[in-house]
């Protein structure tokens, strides 16, 4: 039964796409309601499935794998069918996509009202939803790639939706091409996986991975690095993040759904879906954590100074995506997904709120032309404020729970940088994460204060008629704001749960998703203990162990009964042993690598408290600089000789774009020009030379011409005979 429901989830938006695509000319405004209705049905199904999965309902045995729909590509040993796979991870993603999706659809009915391309807009949007659902439901990498490219296509089409807007078409093209660079990695990863495992079915890859690949081996490292390259494209990470800010040229609901809540999280989804492969490649994990942290930081610094409200949110999205990869990189896969979910709510709310603002003041996007809007659009002000609190990590909001847990896991599990000179281990990733959290609070409240508070700086013609959003736009804002407040309680960290008398009811989400991430967690855990044992031996030998190392080892030693296996060094044995031990100890599906319970509750609470303080200080800083009570505080700071160069650096987005344009776009074009020259003057030049020589030769031959057909025939005959003779003799 559930199989049919699962099929319905992607089918509904597909139907809406077909209806609007073929009959858009006639459906017009109704088309929006058709698309929304279809999406709502998918959302209800997804919600039911997600909740029953979360509660562990007996009616729903996961994973559900409906029989393959049809045989897609099969040649020789290769066989790829169109099949779906629905497990805990898929359930979350489907829920996020369809739930936020239907809210955005509803919102768009109001937002796009009167637009000449209304039907086209909903056609694209429905196609996007379909492709995104295929992406998360696919049971094989090539089918996942269909969704992956499909969402990229819709993104391309929707970014360029306002065809005559300056730069819109360029931005769409840029997004598509930059994503293709990532796809290059994804494709090569698939080819390599096929080479080693002989299959592209995700479940089969996972089941053979431990036997096929050596832990930390070159093959798996290359494969995962290439996959991660694909993820940096889709999920806008360094070095491929440059397309996302430009993508803001699309209509704001698109930015909310595609470029914040769903599509850009596909990279994190892919990593978690193939988490076992990543777990086998520690070098890739470290790379991912570092890239994630760096991206979070870089994008955070850029978000601080952007004038365009949507650009602030875009860079903020890049930054938050960085957190998600940081989580994955330190092995906290389920926290990456949890942040995907909470982020979908608060960032969706922020974007839709920004859309409501832009809509109400006739298209102004410059924060410095806003101000004082609180009085005019109260609902938007309130929901935007709540979402800002959530993203800043205000206690008990969604962002607090998800981001804080990521920082905690980073603190505990991130690889440390050892500074030999001072005999010091520095967890640099945690430090970057914390600084970024601080900046997050500043930039989000900077936008909030500049937009809604202080004196109105609106152009006078706009000021007189600010029109508040209608019901179709308000309802999604309110729902998302409520989500931003409460959805975090799905995963109250253990420490906090215990402290506040919730017993073992914490970390619900982590345990729920643990089923999916467990094999990866087991591999990581077994190798972590192995590594620490080695460290211990080394320390004992040399006799001057760093205090930190010893401390950590002691903590872990107690829970490492599989020491005997370590000597064998056999990956498979270790992983199995770890999994077995894990099952025996907990009896439930809890992520193992995080070693959650073993770290002291005090540490967890301490870090949480630190984060709260940071968030509050950040908000206060933003208030000091931008609330208007000290009107020139921000400009005085910005113009001061120490800060001014930094500000420019931030405003120009670290010159990434300029560098890329010069090097890659310009470079490719140059090579193209050279190739054309080569074609015209070298290859054709040789050809023309030959032709000229032939013409010279022809002049000599011309003297032999007698103008008699018989003579020609005779010569031809002789020639042919000579040819034959040559062939026969040779």
């Amino acid at each position, binding site marked *: 039964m559930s199989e049919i429901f699962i099929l319905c989830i992607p089918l509904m938006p597909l139907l809406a796409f077909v209806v609007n695509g073929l009959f858009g000319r006639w459906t017009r405004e109704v088309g929006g309601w058709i698309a929304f209705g279809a999406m709502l049905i998918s959302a209800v199904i997804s919600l039911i499935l997600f909740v029953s999965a979360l509660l562990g309902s007996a009616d729903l045995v996961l994973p559900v794998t409906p029989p393959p729909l049809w045989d897609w590509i099969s*040649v020789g040993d290769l066989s790829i069918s169109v099949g779906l796979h629905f497990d805990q991870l898929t359930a979350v993603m489907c829920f996020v996509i369809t739930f936020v999706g239907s809210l955005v659809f509803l919102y768009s009915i109001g937002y796009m009202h009167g637009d000449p391309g209304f039907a086209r807009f909903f056609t694209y949007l429905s196609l996007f939803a379909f492709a995104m659902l295929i992406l998360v439901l696919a049971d094989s990498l090539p089918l996942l790639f269909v969704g992956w490219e499909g969402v990229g296509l819709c993104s391309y089409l929707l970014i360029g939706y306002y065809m005559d807007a300056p730069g819109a078409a360029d931005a769409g093209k840029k997004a598509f091409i930059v994503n293709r660079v990532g796809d290059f990695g994804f494709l090569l990863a698939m080819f390599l996986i096929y080479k080693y495992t002989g299959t592209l079915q995700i479940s089969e890859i996972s089941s053979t991975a431990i036997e096929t690949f050596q832990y930390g081996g070159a093959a798996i490292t290359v494969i995962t690095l290439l996959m991660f390259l694909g993820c940096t494209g889709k999920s806008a990470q360094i070095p491929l993040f440059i397309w996302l800010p430009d993508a803001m040229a699309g209509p704001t609901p698109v930015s909310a759904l595609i470029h914040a809540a769903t599509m850009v999280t596909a990279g994190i989804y892919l990593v978690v879906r193939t988490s076992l492969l990543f777990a086998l490649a520690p070098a890739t994990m470290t790379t991912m954590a570092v890239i994630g942290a760096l991206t979070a930081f870089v994008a955070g610094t850029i978000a601080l100074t952007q004038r365009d409200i949507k650009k602030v949110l875009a860079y903020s999205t890049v930054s938050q995506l960085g957190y998600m990869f940081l989580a994955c990189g330190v092995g906290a896969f389920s926290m990456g997904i949890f942040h995907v979910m909470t982020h979908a709510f608060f960032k969706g709310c922020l974007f839709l709120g920004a859309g409501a603002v832009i809509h109400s003041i006739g298209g102004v996007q410059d924060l410095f032309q806003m101000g004082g809007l609180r009085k005019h659009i109260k609902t938007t002000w309130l929901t935007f404020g709540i979402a800002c609190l959530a993203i800043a990590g205000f206690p008990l909001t969604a962002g607090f729970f998800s981001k804080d847990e990521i920082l905690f896991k980073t603190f505990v599990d991130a690889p440390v940088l050892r500074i030999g000179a001072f005999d010091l281990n520095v967890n640099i990733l945690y430090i970057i994460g914390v600084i970024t959290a601080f900046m997050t609070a500043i930039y989000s409240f900077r936008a909030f204060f500049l937009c809604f508070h202080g004196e109105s700086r609106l152009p006078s013609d706009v000021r007189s008629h600010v029109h508040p959003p209608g019901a179709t736009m308000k309802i999604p804002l309110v729902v998302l704001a409520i989500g931003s407040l409460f959805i975090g309680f799905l995963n109250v960290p253990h420490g906090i749960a215990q402290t506040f008398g919730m017993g073992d009811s914490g970390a619900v989400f982590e345990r729920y998703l643990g089923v999916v991430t467990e094999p990866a967690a087991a591999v990581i855990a077994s190798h972590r203990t192995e590594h620490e044992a080695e460290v211990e031996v080394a320390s004992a030998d040399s006799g001057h162990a760093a205090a930190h190392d010893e401390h950590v080892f002691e903590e872990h030693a107690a829970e490492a009964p599989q020491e005997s296996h370590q000597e064998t060094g056999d990956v498979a044995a270790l992983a199995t042993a770890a999994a077995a031990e894990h099952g025996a100890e907990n009896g439930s599906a809890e992520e193992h690598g995080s070693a959650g319970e073993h770290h002291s509750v005090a540490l967890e609470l301490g870090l949480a408290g630190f984060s709260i303080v940071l968030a509050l200080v950040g908000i206060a800083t933003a208030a000091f600089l931008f609330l208007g009570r000290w009107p020139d505080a921000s400009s005085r700071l910005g113009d001061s000789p120490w800060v001014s160069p930094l500000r420019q650096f931030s405003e120009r987005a670290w010159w990434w774009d300029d560098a890329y344009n010069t090097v890659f776009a310009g470079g490719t074009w140059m090579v193209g020009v050279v190739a054309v020259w080569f*074609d015209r003057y070298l290859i054709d030049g040789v*050809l023309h030379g030959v032709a000229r020589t032939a013409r010279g030769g022809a002049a000599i031959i011309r003297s032999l011409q007698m103008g008699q057909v018989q003579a020609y025939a005779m010569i031809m005959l002789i020639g042919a005979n000579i040819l034959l003779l040559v062939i026969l003799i040779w």
Partner: protein
Amino acid sequence: MVENNSNLLLLVTLAPLATSLVVIFAPRVTQAGFARVYALVGSIVTLLLSLGFISGMRADPAAYSSFMSVPWIEDWGIRFTLGLDGLSGMLVLLTNLLIVVSILASWTAITDRAREFYACLLVLQTGIIGTFLALDLFVFYIFWELMLIPLYLLIGIFGSSNRIYATMKFFLYTMAGSLLMLLGILTLYFKTAPLLDDGATFSIIRLVQVSSQLPIETQTIIFFAFAIAFSIKIPLFPFHTWLPDAHTEAPTAGSIVLAGVLLKTGVYGLIRFAIPLFPAVAEAYAPLFLALAVTAIIYGALTALVQEDMKRLVAYSSVSHMGFIVLGLFSFREEAISGAALQMLSHGISTGGLFYCVGLLYERRHTRLLSEFGGLAYNMKIYAVLTVIIVLSSVGLPGLNGFVGEFLILLGTFQVAPVAAAIATLGVILAAVYLLRMTQLALFGKLDREENKALTDLNAREISGLAALIFFALWIGLYPRPFLKLVEPTSRSLAELVEPGAGELVSDRVASIPANSPSQSDNRGQIDGAAGR
């Protein structure tokens, strides 16, 4: 050999020729006259007739389900032998489809000397069909040359301003190839004569059985005589420079047929003749062809990137895309060869479609310069939608036709030549760059030119031609199985033919050749091992 369906075979081959006779004597009533109607009806009849092959092809794609062989010049052992298996059947169907589309595309574009135009097109069709069906090298050569003349006339008479240069270039290039091939065929004929107990023959079926007994030097020379002729036709870098000129000057129909099927005759020649005759040589020189293919992919893409003339752009994209096909072929992996065969079909649809799209604009504006357009999506909505779909199919978007072939080619090639495949995959990025650039400059942006504001959207005839292509693009993209089944025996036998062992016979004689030819045994073992687990 059992002769079955031979009447149909002959009928399909000669129907276009017969139609061309009707067309040339069509009454001249209106400007375009009845010629176009006759031509369209004739081509549709041919298409429908060729559908009769499908059941036989599907039942056993490996066998020549339709076959005929009658003595022709018995003294020289020449028999008029035609045969249709899965691969050739698929290509004949593609040919007949694209001819219908190209007649639709010429409907109003060609009004001057319409009878001659359509007659040429139909003679060309017979030439192409015959080339795909011939199983006797002599017959093959006749049809091969038969293709040349009508296309020469199509470009030379009905082309645009610089057509004389283009035709000369095209003619000289292909004639050079043809002559080489003729020499090759004759050499093969005489050299194999002593090996055959039933007398010298041009029959490819017999020749394949004995050709490997020839001395390796002879094999190499004949192989290259064939391979160069076919490489010019494909065209493979560096023999490609005739293509952009020919395409740019050709009328729309000429471009559609040229890109859609004519180029495939080169690949087909490699698959049907050159490689099966001399598998050892093909394997030994595979690295050379892989290198040229990769060069073609990247080089074609880069040159396409900076073109201002849309037809030149699409022509260079063809060079790039044909490179993928050669790449897949010379990897000698089953997946890749199947992908290459499927890509022959796919490329015909996508690139044929692209030339159609450009032709539609050219007919309206008489220019192909990108700078002359922009914002067409505003007043040519249907055109914009269909063009974007065709562009995406050419870019290789999954779900449409281009992806399946490219994916299989790259996946297969990667198993034996990872570096070549990796570089070729870069071509996938570049394809998006140059095609989206074209789309953007033509369709998006501001509709700021007065001439463009007056342009009309497509009519039903124009839509139907593109819709037919899009239908196949979706079909191949979503459910390529029927097509893959058709080419499976060919690709499997080719992959097995060039398996290690076949090459050992000659390995010592071709020691001078770089030894890093793809070593399939290792990878095969690995895959099998993995699958076994």
